[in-house]
Structure formats: C-alpha cells, structure tokens
C-alpha cells in the first residue's frame, strides 16, 4: 500500500505537518479559522518528536497486522478496502482505549470531548497526498508505494 515514510535525518522540527494536519481535520479546513475560531481546537493526528537536534514526525503506520485492529472490542477500527488504511469508525467506538494500550507507536490519541478515538491518521482520504507530506518543507515525509517489506 502507499504509506507515509519518515526520513528523520531531514526532519527540521518545524512542526508544519502538525499544523496542516490539524487544519485538515478541522471543521472549516481553513487555517485561521481552525486556530482562531474553532473550539475545541481540532487535534493533529501527526506528532513530532524531538530530542536534541534529532526529530521526526510520527503518525499511524497503518500496520499490516495492526494491533489496534485486533484489540478493538467494538470493531470500530477497520481497514479501508481501497487504500488499506486503518481507520476508526467513530459511530462504533466506545472509548475503551484498547487501541491506545496496544499501539507500539503511541500514535492514537483520545478525543476527550466525545470520549472516542479522536486522533488517528486517516492518510487524508480524498487528498491525493496526505497534507503532512504535502506541506513538509524538507521532504522528510514521503508518500510512497514500496514493494520491499
């Protein structure tokens, strides 16, 4: 499948990926509105980790055998047939946080308002490329189909 790959040696820690992810998942999808008018503010589904000069953006890896899929007690977590992305059906989610317990990347966040899985990368379905990749100024994120496992 087409995945987001992270090249930590080129991540400059600007966090533009987080900003644009937040905007993409806001109601208006407009940056100024998303930050200045929408409350609660949308949550970014990508997380930039920093340590010294090392940094990288981390978002759901859409694992081939995804622990969150196996652990989900409601079946809310599902794999999208077309993109093979792991997505969460918020209708079904009851917020048992099994997924948070098993995700080894720690990239699933709670949405405290709705007490549902709030922040889970959806590869920006609809966009031809996830916005974090689109907006990375240094190509530290790439969106590729790689054959090698």
């Amino acid at each position, binding site marked *: 499948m087409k995945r987001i*790959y992270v090249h930590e040696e080129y991540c400059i820690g600007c966090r533009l990926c987080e900003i644009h992810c937040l905007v993409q998942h806001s109601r208006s999808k407009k940056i100024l509105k998303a930050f200045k008018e929408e409350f609660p503010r949308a949550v970014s589904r990508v*997380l930039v*980790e920093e340590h010294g000069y090392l*940094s990288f953006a981390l978002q759901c890896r*859409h694992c081939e055998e995804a622990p969150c899929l196996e*652990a989900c007690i409601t079946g809310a977590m599902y794999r999208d047939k077309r993109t093979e992305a792991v997505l969460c059906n918020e209708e079904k989610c*009851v917020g048992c946080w*099994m997924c948070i317990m098993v*995700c080894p990347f720690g990239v699933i966040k709670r949405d405290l308002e709705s007490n549902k899985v709030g922040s889970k990368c959806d590869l920006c379905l609809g966009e031809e490329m996830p916005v974090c990749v689109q907006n990375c100024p240094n190509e530290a994120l790439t969106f590729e189909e790689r054959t090698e*496992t």
Partner: protein
Amino acid sequence: MNYTIIGNSAAAVGAIEAIRRYDRKGEIVVVSREPYSVYSRPLISHLLAGHIQENRIFYREKDFYKRNRIQTFLRREVKAIQARSNHLLLDDGERLGFEKLLIATGGCPMIPPVKGIDRRGVFTFTTWDDAKEIRRYVRENPVESAVVIGGGLIGLKAMEALMASGLRVTVTELMDRILSATFDKKASEMIERQLKARGVNLITENTVEEILGSHNGIEEVLLKDGRRLKCQVVIFGIGVFPNIGLVKDTPIRYNKGIRVNAHMETNISGIYAAGDVVEIPDILLDTVRPIAIWPNAYRQGWIAGCNMAGTPRRYEGSFAMNSIEICGIPTISVGMAEAPENGFEIIQEFDSKSGTYKKIILKDGVIVGALFIGEIDRAGIYTGLIRERIDVSGVKDILLREDFGFISLPREYRKHLVRGEGVFL
C-alpha cells in the same frame, strides 16, 4: 476444505478472517450456542448502562457471514467432539463432519459455592442474554439495590452499569482491595476513593455466603462476617475460566485450559483451539496459563486460522494487559502490576492534584510491567517495549518524562518508522 468453528466471538472471527485471507473457496461452518450474529461481549456493560443502543453491539457488519460465505448453526450446542472420526455431535443428535476444527468456546463465569444461587434475581454477567435478563428483571421488579460479588474488572463494569440504571450497589471483594489482580495497592486505593465518593458501598476481605429471600425474589444476602445486606439483585462478577467441558473425555489434552502448540493446534492434528478456552505462554512469567483478554483471543484465532488454511504462522505468546475506564478514570495496566520479589526496579510518578499515577517495573533493564491511572496517552509504546523485550536501561531516567517517546528509543527499534511495517502484539 472444510473448516468448522465452535464458538462465535473474537477468536472465531479472527480465524474466519484469516482463513478467508488464504482460502476463498473452503467451506466454513460456525456452531454457536448463542442465537446472535457475532457481537462484542465486552459491550454488554455499556448496553446495560444504556450507553449504547443494541444495534451497536455487533462486532462485525450485518453481512459478515454472508460476505465470508459461512454456514452458521446458531442457538445450537455441540454435545461432543468425536476427535477420532472428525465429527461433532450436536444437541439435536445431528452429526457434522469436519476436516479442520477450531475450538473457540471461550470462558464460563466462575460461581463460588453460595447457598441460594437459584433464586430469582441472581445473575452472571458475561453474555448479551445476561445483560438482557438483568435489564428485564430490574425493569419488571421493584429493584432498588444490588450486590455485585467480585471487585475485579467484570464486577466493576457490572457495578457501573447497575449504577447507571439507578441502583444502589454494593461490591464485595474477597481480597483486601479491588482490582488486586491488575492493579497495585496505590492504584486500587485511587479507584476505591473514587468509587466511595460516588456512593458505591465497597466491602473488602469479605463475601456473600448465602442469598436469602422468598420464591418471588431476593430480600438480602448474608456476608461471611455475619452482616446482612438488603438487596434485590445479586450478580456474580468474579471472572471466567476456560470453557473446556467439551474436551473432557476426548483425547484432546488440557490443563487449566486446552493446551496448544505455537500453531494453536491441540495434540490432535487438525484440531485447533483459541481464545479464552486455551492456555498459552505468558512471556513475562514464563508460565503457561489462560490469559482471557480480547486482543489475545482475536490474534490466537487469526494464527489458528492461518495454520488451518495451510499458511504456517507461529503465536508469540502474550501477557496480561487491560484497559478499563472506571468512574471516568482511564486506566491501563500491562504485564506485572507489582514486583513479585526483589531484583526488580520500579519507576513511578504520582500526582494527587491531577489524579494521575504512572509506574514502570523493570527487570534487567527490560520493562515487565506498566501501570497508568488517569493519564494513558502513548501507553502502547511501553507495551511495545515489553513485547519486543527492548533494553531501556539507557533511557531509564526519562521513561516517564513528558517528552519520552519513540525518539528516545534505539534507532534499530525506530526502523519501524522508515519501514512502516506493523509489529505484532
């Protein structure tokens, strides 16, 4: 190829989805005692509490069987497994032949020897039917208060559900604290304080000895210490044990649960078992025991399914873990909650103001237990470290720091990032 599956929950679904991944043609037969299309047992407390509607309890879409072309025998019970002749004997005498068999019969609620358990108003709490009956009973009878036997996960979920339906609830726990199996003392205290604050009547180091009442229902229970409690409903929420009734007097070997090899196959070739009914290696405790949790059930089912369909896969074993929210407090506990003896290192962090508590248990630089109360974000990272046995002695001091994350881990371990592959849990 014919695949027959006894049971219709997580393990069964895991197996079905695995089989269909590798074998689109083979015939799949599911026999289940319950009448329902596959649903999620952990959701019954949400249902009873009225948090969700019935239509949301289903674990897979309505057309799950149809899409996977599965022949179902619902509301039918297997009476016997004829391992030698590869046949199942059903309650109505019908015999079903099978080529590959998966036993996924799950667990049964534990019911201690208590007098008067046959009275109206006494329930177990594991199936959708349990939830339905409790609900009806509460609606149709003058019920004001209930006693839940068992201060573990099931007992507390039942307690929450009953409170939500407006009852006064007493919880009796044999041990000196609730959740003694999954939490440490401090964590238990934190939850107990919350429960009491919400008016739950907690009675520890004590249990129900007899359920008293008349033919038209319970009036009160008699506790071990002689105390009496008025109540109209009693629920057994102690826990479950492997439902191995079927394999007794068959050649299939079992201990606490059915014994399986790494392919989830029993000692009889072609017969597999998965889910709460089996016992599997606990990679933390180096023992073999049942670990009755949902993620294990699904994965074991998946592994069994792969092997049944002829694609060898090994099950890596597992360890205890649980995520549960009690009184709105999210909690996650993975692996050991308390260090069994010395030689373990403990890192913890407690903030009474925000009511958060984090604790990591290390052995020889490797995490063997993690406990999170109140704040659970990114807890999975630690689960992963436990699973992969990563030596974290290098980053010990920052394990619980705000900025601890993937980046603090060895580059080799971060390869997941670039490779983007999944890891197995």
